[in-house]
C-alpha cells in the first residue's frame, strides 16, 4: 500500500485502494460507531452464560466452533439481532462521521442523510422531503421490529 498525501487523506488515502472519501471509509466509520451498540446488547447475555455450558459441550465431543455455533450462538442470537437492528437504526441517521470521512461526494459517497442536507441547501425541497419521508418510514418499521425483538428478548430471559 503506497502512502499518498495528495488527496489529504494521509495514511488512509493510498492510491491503490482508496479508503478515505470512498465507500470503505463509510463502512469503517459506521462499524466503529455502531460496535458499542452490538457489544452492549450481547455482553450481559454472554456474561450470564456460565463456562459450564461450553465445558459440557466440550466433554460431549463438540469442537470450539461447533460449541459456538450450536450452543453459544442460539443463546445470544436474540440479543445479536436486537443489536444489529439498533445499529441499523443508528446508522441510517448518521450524518457527521460519514460526511467527514466520506466527503459526501454526489453519486459516489453520498448517503441519504448527506443527500437531504445537500438537497435542502440547494433548495431541492422535493428531493429532500421525499428522502426524509422514506427515512421516517424506515425508522418506524425499525421501531416496530425492535419492539417485537425486545419482547422476545424479555421472554427468552424469563424462560431461563
Amino acid at each position, binding site marked *: 500500500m503506497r502512502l499518498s498525501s495528495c488527496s489529504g487523506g494521509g495514511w488512509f488515502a493510498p492510491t491503490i485502494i482508496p479508503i478515505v472519501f470512498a465507500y470503505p471509509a463509510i463502512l469503517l466509520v459506521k462499524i466503529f460507531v455502531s460496535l458499542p451498540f452490538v457489544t452492549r446488547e450481547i455482553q450481559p447475555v454472554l456474561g450470564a452464560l*456460565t463456562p459450564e455450558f461450553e465445558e459440557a*459441550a*466440550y*466433554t*460431549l*465431543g*463438540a*469442537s470450539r466452533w*461447533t460449541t459456538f455455533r450450536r450452543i453459544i450462538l442460539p443463546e445470544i442470537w436474540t440479543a445479536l439481532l436486537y443489536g444489529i437492528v439498533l445499529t441499523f437504526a443508528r446508522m441510517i441517521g448518521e450524518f457527521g462521521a460519514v460526511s467527514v470521512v466520506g466527503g459526501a461526494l454526489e453519486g459516489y459517497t453520498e448517503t441519504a442523510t448527506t443527500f437531504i442536507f445537500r438537497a435542502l441547501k440547494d433548495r431541492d425541497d422535493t428531493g429532500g422531503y421525499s428522502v426524509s419521508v422514506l427515512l421516517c418510514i424506515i425508522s418506524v418499521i425499525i421501531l416496530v421490529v425492535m419492539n417485537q425483538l425486545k419482547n422476545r428478548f424479555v421472554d427468552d430471559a424469563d424462560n*431461563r
Partner: protein
Amino acid sequence: MSIILNQINKSYGLQHVVRDVSLHIETGELFVLLGASGSGKSTLLRLIAGLIDVDAGTILLNGNDVTHLPPQKRETGFVFQNYSLFRHMTVAQNIEFGLSIRRYARIDRQQRVHELLELIGLPDYGKRMPNQLSGGQQQRVALARALAYDPNVLLMDEPFGALDAKIRTQLRQNLHEIQKRLGITAILVTHDQEEAFEIADRIGIIDQGRLLEVGTPSELYRRPQHRFTATFLGSVNLLNASRNGTQVYVGDSSLPAPAGTDYLSGQQVELLARPEEIALSLTPNTAQGHVIGTGIIETLAFAGPMQRITVRLDKGENKQLLTVLLSPGELRNAALQLRQQVWVSLKDFHLLPQTQPASTK
C-alpha cells in the same frame, strides 16, 4: 476402563491446588472423592476430564495416556452440579447431542434417546424443554446426556448439590442402580459424607490438594490412618494414650491393643472412639467392652433415632468431654440420668499416631 493418575499437580499462581495425587481406579468401580470445599477435588475431576491442563503428572484411561488430549477426545461423560442442560434444546435434543456430534444416524439417535429416557424414568419427556423440568428431573437428563455415547468413564461434580435432601437421597440411589447396571467406571466428587458412604465402592479423602487416604467406607470410618480422616468422617472422640507391648494405656486404665497396631508400640498415640462405640453403665460389672474410667453425664439430648450424651471423665488430661450416642433402648436399660456418675467403656476403638494434642470433635 481403569483410570490411573500418577503424580498429578496443578497450581494457580502460588496456590498449589492439586499436589502429587496418584490413584488407581478399577473398571466398574464407583469411586468417590470426598473433601471439604476448596480441597481440590473438583479441580482434580476437571483435570481428568481435560477441561484443565495438568502442570505435571500423567493420566491414563484404560492404558492410554490422555494427559495432553483435549476433552473432546477423552470420551468421558461429565455431569455438572448445575446440570448445564442446553436451554434452547428439548430434553431429547440434549440427550442426543453427543450422538449427533459423533454423526450417529437419526434412527439410532432416536432409539438411544428412547432407551435412556426409560433408564432415567422419564419416558415421555423427550419434547419438553429444560425449564419445564424440576431440578431432580434436569439432573437425570444431564446424566442421560452424559451416558448417551457409552463414555469410558462417568465423572460427576457434586451432582446432587443443588437439590433438596429428599430428592438427593432418591437420585443417589437411582444413580447407584444405573451405575451398577451399566458397569461403568465412575468418579463422583462430593463434600457429603453420607452420600459417599451410601454409594461408594471406595472413597478417596482429599485435603488441601492432597489425596490423604483411600479405602472402603467402612475402613475409612473405623480404621482411618490420618487424623484428618477420623475427624472429617463423622463425630469422633480422641484420647491421648500410649501403646506398649500388647496394651494401650489411657489414664489409669489399660486395654488390649487392637490387631495391626504393633508399628505404634512404644509411642504416644491417639485413641479414636466413635460415639456409638462407647457404652455407659452404672456399675463396672455391667459395662460392655473395655472400661476406661468413670465420668459424669453433662447433657442428654434427643437426636432423632439416637440419644446424644456428653460425659465428662473424672480423671485424665483436662477431664475430657466425650460424646456418646446411645439408642433409646440402651438409654432405658441403663436408666441413665443427668449428672449421674457412670462407668465409661469402649466396645471398639482404633489407634492413630500422635500428631497433636487430642480433643473431642
